[in-house]
């Protein structure tokens, strides 16, 4: 019955519960990379038509390899136990995409805000949206890009105006263990604020 294409098509029949975590951050910050690092399936992408396109708005200077931008929701999953599957949804967190991710935020365990230390200002709007429009527990993960400034977490906290309680971790989005640790830190934070 199992073939290479159907192997991961379905979850185990014992799975009865799903939990979702949002991975938010500006374009090119590594959301899909992080999802791909931990997902048991190739990250999938689904597009929702929203009225605003981002063409001509996004800064691409710091990420020259990213030449096209689609408003897509990338996601992956990890079957954590016989009964629980964790879904990771990557979504741009800017205000103009609110319609796309407001439904996602509802009922989520928390949000992992992925930040590029070379472009801290790109995260202001995402953090603002999370703080003002949701009650989601969230934390910041600095995706360590080559050539990025090596800020101390406290410097990041000050620059992003984060509460003392908001965890900050450094996380290479390409490294599975680092990503899993970041997700665990977020869930721990969610439990503290639950």
């Amino acid at each position, binding site marked *: 019955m199992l073939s290479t294409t159907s192997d991961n*098509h379905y979850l185990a*029949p014992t799975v009865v*519960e*799903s939990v979702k975590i949002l991975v938010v951050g500006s374009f090119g910050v590594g959301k899909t990379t992080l999802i791909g690092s931990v997902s048991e399936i190739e990250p999938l992408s689904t597009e929702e038509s929203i009225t605003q396109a981002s063409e001509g708005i996004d800064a691409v200077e710091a990420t020259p390899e990213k030449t096209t931008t689609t408003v897509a929701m990338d*996601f992956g999953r990890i079957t954590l136990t016989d009964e629980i599957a964790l879904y990771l949804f990557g979504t741009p967190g800017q205000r103009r995409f609110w319609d796309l991710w407001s439904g996602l935020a509802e*009922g989520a365990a928390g949000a992992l805000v992925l930040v590029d230390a070379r472009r801290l200002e790109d995260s202001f709007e995402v953090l603002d949206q999370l703080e003002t429009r949701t009650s989601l527990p969230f934390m910041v993960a600095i995706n360590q890009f080559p050539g990025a400034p090596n800020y101390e977490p406290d410097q990041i906290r000050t620059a992003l105006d984060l509460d003392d309680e908001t965890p900050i971790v450094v996380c290479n989005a390409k490294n599975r263990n680092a990503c899993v640790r970041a997700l665990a830190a977020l869930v721990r934070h969610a*439990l503290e604020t639950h």
Partner: protein
Amino acid sequence: MPDAPGDDYVDHPIRSYVRTGGRARPTHRLTPATLLIGHASPSATSVGRQEREVLSHCLGVISLAEMAVHLGQPVSVLAVIASDMIDAGLIGVRPDSDTTAGPSRETLQKVLHALNHL
């Protein structure tokens, strides 16, 4: 028979609102991480082509988002279709999948434990 002589019929892509009967909102609250499972066979004679397509991707437990990708439809469109199919008893929802209230403390503890042991 689009190729029949004198037949100028052109097969346009079907607009989303045609698939959903003009409705934008599902009757059930289905989210991308809602888990669905088929209750009927895709070969059941009583179902239409659209339902058959959905059922053919519901042979096991699957999230709405994954099914949307496999069917090449936006999640919001599939939610409307799937919602009708739930009403018709063709598919079912895992009750604890992606609830509005969010995960319970007990669930979060299980998730944390599992992540720590990955």
